[in-house]
Every structure is written in C-alpha cells, then in structure tokens.
C-alpha cells in the first residue's frame, strides 16, 4: 500500500509505470487521476486545498485497508495533494492492481467515493470575483450507499 499526502506535483506517467511494473500475477491495473477543472467561464485562478495533517493519512489508510479487505487486490496507491493548484494541474490519483479487472475497477471507484467525502480535504475556489468554499455534493454522499 502506497499513500502520499503532499504539496508537490506528482508525475502520473512515472507513477503509473512503476505501479504497473512487476505485478506478474496482476492482470488489471486501474488508475484514476483528478485534475483541477476550470470553471465553465474559464475564470478559475486557483483551487486551494486545505487538509488535516495527521488525520488525512490515517483516513486514507483506513479507506485503502477497507478496499483491500473487500476486493482481491495486489496493491493500492493513493496520492493526494494540498495547497494552491491551478487549472489543469493534477490534484490526486489512485491506482489499483488486481488479478481481474472487476476488482481493480470497483476498488478504484470505492477509493474515489470514500476519498471524496471521508478524507479530510476542503477545496476553495479562487476567481477574479472572490473566493468560495466548494460545497459537498449530495450525490457524493449518495455514492457511498452503493458499497
């Protein structure tokens, strides 16, 4: 299990390649990468991500452990950034390796659903007209009910 909470950018290509390498009995590798999406009017200057040091790593490890106990997985990786990010920057990624594709996909979706609303991160949008905290979406909470 590889977990990192960091301010620095990560190299998706290198991480995906290293994660996929050497999993001789894992037939399926899934990655999800979250990108700071510009607003529809292209006026997003930055996304500021606050987190709760200490609890963040703990919460992510708990979610990853739950995924590993629920699906047949060979490995799990979670990287989540904090700090000030600009549109187009990669915020976070998860990767799963499993013997079969169904486990790899489901575990990755489970990780994402739980990271969205159970890992202590908060996003604030900065635009030329001001700043505003991103509200949690009811559908993100609803997404947990399928697991």
């Amino acid at each position, binding site marked *: 299990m590889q977990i990192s909470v960091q301010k620095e950018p990560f190299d998706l290509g290198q991480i995906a390649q290293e994660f996929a390498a050497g999993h001789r009995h894992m037939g399926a590798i899934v990655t999800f990468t*979250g990108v700071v999406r510009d607003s529809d009017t292209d006026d997003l200057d930055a996304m500021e991500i*606050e987190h*709760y040091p*200490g*609890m963040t790593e*703990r*919460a992510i490890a708990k979610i990853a452990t739950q995924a590993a106990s629920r699906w047949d997985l060979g490995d799990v990786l979670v990287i*989540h950034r904090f700090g000030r990010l600009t549109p187009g920057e990669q*915020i*976070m990624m998860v990767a799963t390796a499993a013997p079969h594709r169904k486990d790899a996909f489901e575990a990755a979706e489970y990780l*994402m659903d739980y*990271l*969205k*609303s*159970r*890992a*202590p*991160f*908060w*996003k*604030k949008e900065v635009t030329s007209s001001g700043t505003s*905290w*991103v*509200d*949690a979406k009811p559908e*993100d*909470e609803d997404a947990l009910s399928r697991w």
Partner: protein
Amino acid sequence: MIELLYFAWVRERIGLPKEHIETQASTVAELINELIAKEDRYALAFSDLSAIRVALDQDLIDDFTASLEGVREVAFFPPMTGG
C-alpha cells in the same frame, strides 16, 4: 485541557486554526453548546449543525452524543470535499 482544531470555513468564521481550552463538557454536543455560548463567532460557525463534521483524536464520529472522555483533540469542519 483539550485541543480544538478548526478547518475550512469553520476556521475562517471562528478566526483561528486551533486553541487549547478547559472544558467540563462530557460530550461533543455539550462542548458545542459551551462554544456557542462563549462568543458570536462560535455561534456563527455552529449555526447550522447539519453542516458540521467532527473528529475525535482524528477519527470521524457519527453522532454529537459521542463522549469526550480521554479525548485530547477535537476537530470541527464542514463536509469534506476531497478527490
């Protein structure tokens, strides 16, 4: 002595990221009521409790009736928006 941590708009409304306080509260709900009674900025932060999430010693709790016994760190924050 207990350490209180505030994040996101809870932090902004209260005006500080953390503080140490003395409290007689035995549950999270009692602690919130103490804070609300203290100053308007707390009352503002806790005006809509449905938007408040709480972690005790870095574990999320489901229910404000949770006991504070043995707890060293209480964090208050809005619903999380990770991912």
